[in-house]
């Protein structure tokens, strides 16, 4: 047992010395991700992208005031670049990236509506990114809804104003009906009808009063919505992406370190010495796992501390859960790295595999695309990546304040243990062949 520990310690000392002999590498590993997260936070302010918008109309005078009011109210979404009367000129500006959006106001919209047809706003953009196209469509809907709302509000306000004279007429009618009822002799057969008429007029008057008393804005938009998250915390873009960035980074570091480890030793020839020396594949594997885990846990601790204290990324859940999640992520990622190292023939091949895994993790782990949007068979690929489990665990712990999701934890733990066993068997074969 004592010799077992000594043999394992050979790797601990060797790997750590080799890593710590490269202070620039350590500095890059610690500060690099922290700087990336900081820059990411600075690069993406927590607000929507405002679109430079050019309006096209054949009758600028008729719409100028309305457009000014509108763009002022929605200045966070629209930047008014004025009105054009020539649609082709506006589209040319769009093609030259001098404007982001061209909204063509329909000619004679009121006549079109009066003819029982919808007046159509044509919205042009020059986006290619599907997300930006979706954003433009959302903005276009906001725009047309707002126009519809404004028209309805104007019509309502007009109706409220017009109903003032109607209300006076009703009051006169009610007074006259009362007088008529009082003038009728008792037992007149028409008395009930007059009473009924008076009641109807009174109801109508009250409804009209209510209509007039309500704000036109409430009448047009009677319902609104308020959303709030369970955690009660307002997350910034940086906060949201921080857990995923930490996970991707730790996974990538683990895989890269481990993937180069054995392939280098195989190529340098020292594996020949391991095969002849009294060290087993199991001891070698344990030694390497312990060395890299030791270093990466320290690294993860420093990155987390910087993220929490300097970038103010919250950890709403427990620190123990966070530590456990990071540990199992590192353990499983090392398993992936050693597997790459054992099947690669050269350093270059190992680096290529690691990069492919990083790419796969960016696209399939839920880093920026929600896993719930993914088609069913592809989710199997997603759930074969340690990063998918890591992001899910860290988002739950850090942002939702939940405890470690047990099914997710069990999933990644099983993958990690299976990978360890596969790596051990492959290394044993390598050392025995």
């Amino acid at each position, binding site marked *: 047992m004592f*010799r*077992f520990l*000594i*043999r394992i*310690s*050979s790797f601990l*000392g*060797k790997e750590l*010395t*080799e890593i710590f*002999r*490269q202070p620039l590498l350590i500095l890059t590993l610690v500060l690099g991700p922290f700087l990336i997260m900081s820059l990411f936070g600075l690069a993406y302010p927590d607000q929507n992208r405002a679109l430079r918008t050019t309006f096209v109309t054949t009758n600028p005078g008729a719409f100028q005031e309305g457009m000014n009011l509108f763009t002022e109210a929605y200045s966070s979404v629209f930047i008014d670049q004025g009105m054009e009367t020539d649609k082709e000129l506006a589209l040319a500006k769009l093609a030259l990236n001098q404007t982001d959006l061209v909204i063509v106001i329909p000619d004679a919209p009121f006549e079109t509506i009066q003819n029982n047809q919808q007046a159509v706003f044509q919205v042009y953009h020059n986006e290619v990114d599907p997300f930006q196209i979706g954003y433009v469509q959302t903005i276009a809907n906001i725009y047309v809804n707002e126009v519809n709302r404004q028209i309805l509000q104007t019509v309502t306000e007009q109706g409220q104003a017009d109903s003032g004279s109607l209300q006076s007429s009703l009051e006169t009618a009610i007074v006259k009906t009362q007088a008529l009822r009082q003038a009728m002799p008792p037992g007149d057969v028409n008395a009930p009808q007059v009473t009924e008429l008076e009641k109807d007029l009174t109801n109508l008057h009250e409804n009209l009063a209510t209509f007039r008393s309500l704000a036109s804005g409430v009448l047009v938009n009677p319902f609104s919505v308020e959303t709030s998250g369970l955690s009660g915390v307002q997350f910034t873009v940086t906060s949201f992406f921080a857990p995923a960035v930490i996970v991707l980074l730790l996974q990538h570091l683990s895989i890269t370190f481990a993937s180069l480890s054995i392939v280098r030793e195989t190529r*340098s*020839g*020292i594996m*020949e*010495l*391991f*095969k*002849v*020396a*009294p*060290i*087993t594949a199991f001891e070698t594997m344990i030694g390497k796992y312990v060395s890299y885990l030791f270093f990466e846990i320290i690294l993860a601790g420093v990155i987390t501390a910087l993220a929490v204290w300097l970038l103010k990324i919250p950890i709403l859940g427990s620190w123990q859960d966070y530590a456990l999640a990071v540990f199992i992520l590192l353990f499983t990622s090392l398993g992936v790295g050693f597997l790459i190292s054992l099947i690669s023939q050269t350093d270059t091949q190992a680096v290529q595999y690691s990069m492919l895994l990083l790419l796969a993790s960016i696209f399939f782990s839920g880093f920026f695309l929600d896993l719930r949007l993914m088609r069913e068979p592809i989710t199997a690929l997603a759930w074969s990546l340690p990063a998918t489990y890591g992001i899910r665990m860290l988002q739950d712990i850090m942002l939702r304040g939940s405890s470690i999701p047990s099914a997710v934890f069990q999933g990644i733990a099983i993958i990690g243990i299976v990978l360890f066993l596969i790596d051990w068997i492959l290394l044993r074969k390598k050392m025995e062949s």
Partner: protein
Amino acid sequence: MKNNMLAGNVVETQDLTKIFGEEIAVQSLNMQVPRGTIFGFIGPSGCGKTTTVRLLTGFYSPTSGTLSVLGKNPVDFSKSDRRKIGYLIQQFVLYPDLTVWENLNFAASLYGVGLFRWGRLNKLLDFVELAGDKSKLARDLSGGMKRRLSLAATLVHNPELLFLDEPTAGIDPILRRKFWDYFKELQAEGHTLFTTTQYVGEAAYCDLVGVMHGGKLLMIETPDGLRRKAYGGDVVGIRTTEGMNFEHRRQLESLPFVHGKVKVIDEQENDVIVDEANTAIPTLMEWCQAQKLNVETIEEKSPPFDDVFIKIIEMETANV
């Protein structure tokens, strides 16, 4: 041969063969390496020396035949068996980003050497004359220093049997000589050394020499024995003042203890092959006096092992 060779063989092989696909790397190798000897395995590059070492260390399994190293088949070595052998690999395989001391420490841990090992490590560094360079990174060492560090790493667990695969390859003659001094010291401490080399001249430092060619072990002999086998006896050089004529040479060749033709080196000097130099020299002196030849020098010659080796290869090729 030393007396301690009598203490048994540490390596024995019987028809040991290793085949890679279509290529026969080692063919029907039979040999015994006595304990306490320096056994030199000599042959040109690619003749199967390294494959043999790998078979003996358990790195490869034999295709056929049997082998025993320290009484066991290396493939079945336990951890304690492995601690008894040291293996110096042909190329430098230690870590370039670790210092001399750290590399040595790593090798010690790999072999499970106890934690209180500083004394031994320092002693080894003294032995290979790297004590002043222990803080140097391995990548900054010269080729010779790297070989010395590798040797120290091989000795770190004090193995009783050392396999040294071309330990002197690529280093200068002075350092090569120093390495053989180390090996002699190790032998004196009781270690058995099995070393390969392509420097044929190094055969002279070995107790026994195995000559390998084309995957076959041509012979195992002492260095002197090798010479005798190559030339059919001892070589005696005779230098006379007057020089020998054709008749002298014909008579010399007809002497019963002289083999083959007299080799003319120059007008005054001739070489002859005799059964035994020590007994032949006085007789040759008498013969010269009888022939009125004034002898300037007469002595046994030691032909360079390069020539010996080439002769042996030529003989074997001719036999085939």
